[in-house]
């Protein structure tokens, strides 16, 4: 049982019920290409029809999260029952995956704008009468001016609590061309979330080439975050916007600790190459980067995971997530059971409440620190 703790789930994926839901929000020029793309996306997410992409053998979705029609995550009643009901989630941060980093930035930006408008009408509108959903403003970072306009359009909406960018853009996020996006996010006090969303094969360029197997691909999600974190730190983006927070979603937890050690190792030697940093990289990362739990690493001895979490050097960097309705969904109870008992409340909801401004939890450090395990 996990209902002793409030839960803020930082990675939930709503989907349109049918391609027409998004097409209604797109300019005419995109109706042809986007319609074809969306139809393929629907085939993949229904697990039916002919989809020639290379995916998980377990299919992309929890089988029991598939509604009567439409892909997983498209039926608000089913999501309420499984996520808010059975899983006991108090608040869900919604991250639609209608785009990945795309070949064409104008196309990507148009999909972002359509998705945001659709989210505002549906999941943050009609479907949110209970008030337990919050959204992400999706933007295409490779069209920074358009991205800033999109942030300005929705920042005052109230239902959107973060900006979201894909894990793959034209370059690493410390490059100066991306600064306007982060400046806009910082100005509106919105965190920036990055979510992994790729398929294996030629779509995943690892540092040594391309992967062949889905099993080979999935554990490497984390690889996407190394260059972005290093780039943001070295280029001084963290230093420039000290109040800006980055949320790295679906990359796991334990990798960040040894990476911070490595980043700091030559600080004395190379600090003069990046003189805008006035402290070692890990101090910025500890202050400004958060990771979400799913897919939580499960070493045979759970205490080893606890050591890595302890070595992070901050209790403010981890937030709970399920990844509902995807096949690699982390259920709350077995996940929280594997987290250090004295940090469960902090990871289950306190860090997220602080980041996203759920003020009802303010001063809730007295909340129960352990989850009864059935």
């Amino acid at each position, binding site marked *: 049982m996990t209902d002793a703790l409030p839960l803020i789930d930082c990675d939930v994926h709503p989907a349109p019920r049918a391609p027409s839901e998004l097409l209604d929000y797109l300019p005419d020029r995109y109706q042809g290409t986007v319609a074809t793309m969306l139809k393929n996306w629907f085939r993949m997410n229904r697990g039916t029809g002919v989809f020639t992409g290379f995916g998980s053998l*377990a299919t992309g979705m929890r*089988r*029991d999260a598939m509604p009567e029609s439409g892909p997983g995550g498209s039926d608000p009643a089913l999501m309420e029952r499984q996520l808010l009901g059975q899983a006991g989630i108090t608040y869900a941060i919604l991250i639609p995956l209608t785009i990945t980093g795309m070949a064409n930035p104008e196309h990507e930006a148009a999909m972002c704008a359509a998705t945001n408008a659709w989210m505002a009408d549906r999941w943050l509108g009609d479907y949110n009468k209970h008030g337990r959903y919050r959204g992400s403003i999706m933007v295409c970072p490779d069209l920074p001016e358009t991205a800033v306009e999109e942030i300005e359009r929705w920042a005052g909406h109230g239902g959107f609590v973060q900006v979201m960018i894909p894990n793959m853009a034209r370059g690493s996020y410390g490059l100066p061309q991306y600064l306007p996006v982060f400046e806009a996010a910082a100005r509106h006090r919105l965190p920036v979330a990055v979510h992994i969303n790729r398929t294996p094969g030629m779509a995943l360029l690892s540092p040594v080439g391309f992967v062949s197997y889905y099993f080979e691909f999935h554990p490497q999600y984390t690889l996407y975050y190394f260059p972005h974190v290093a780039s943001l730190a070295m280029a001084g983006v963290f230093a420039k916007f000290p109040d800006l927070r980055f949320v790295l979603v679906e990359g796991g937890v334990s990798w960040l600790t040894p990476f911070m050690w490595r980043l700091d190792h030559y600080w004395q030697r190379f600090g003069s190459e990046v003189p805008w940093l006035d402290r070692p990289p890990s101090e910025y990362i500890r202050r400004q980067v958060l990771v979400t739990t799913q897919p939580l690493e499960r070493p045979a001895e759970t205490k080893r995971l606890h050591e890595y979490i302890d070595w992070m050097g901050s209790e403010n960097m981890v937030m709970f997530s399920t990844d509902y309705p995807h096949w690699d969904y982390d*259920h709350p109870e*077995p996940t929280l059971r594997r987290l250090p008992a004295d940090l469960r409340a902090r990871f289950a909801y306190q860090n997220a409440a602080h980041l996203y401004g759920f003020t009802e939890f303010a001063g809730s450090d007295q909340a129960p620190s352990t989850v009864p395990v059935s």
Partner: protein
Amino acid sequence: MTIRACLVDELPPGSSRIVPGGRFGIGVFNCDGDLYAIANYCPHDGAPVCLGPVTGTTQSDGSYQASWIDEGRILRCPWHGWEFDMRTGKSVVSPTRRVKTYPVRVENGCILIDD
């Protein structure tokens, strides 16, 4: 204790149903005339395993080569896709992990599960 699941005629080959029993319910499957009864609880994370698809699995024929085997005998968990051999309950990949199975028999046209 014996659980009356249903009539054999109500469970044609290729079909399954979940009946009350045990702590989580019991899935009864008819695979080409063979009956299996499996606890509706995945040993991984507690998912309702019997809601998953009945499928086959692969067998290695050496690196880069594999063949498809056991069609209709493998239950794949609906959440994380763990595979279980319905004949033994054992995980295909890691046979030390298993779903609970029950003896199942037919008497007078009725499927009975011994719990």
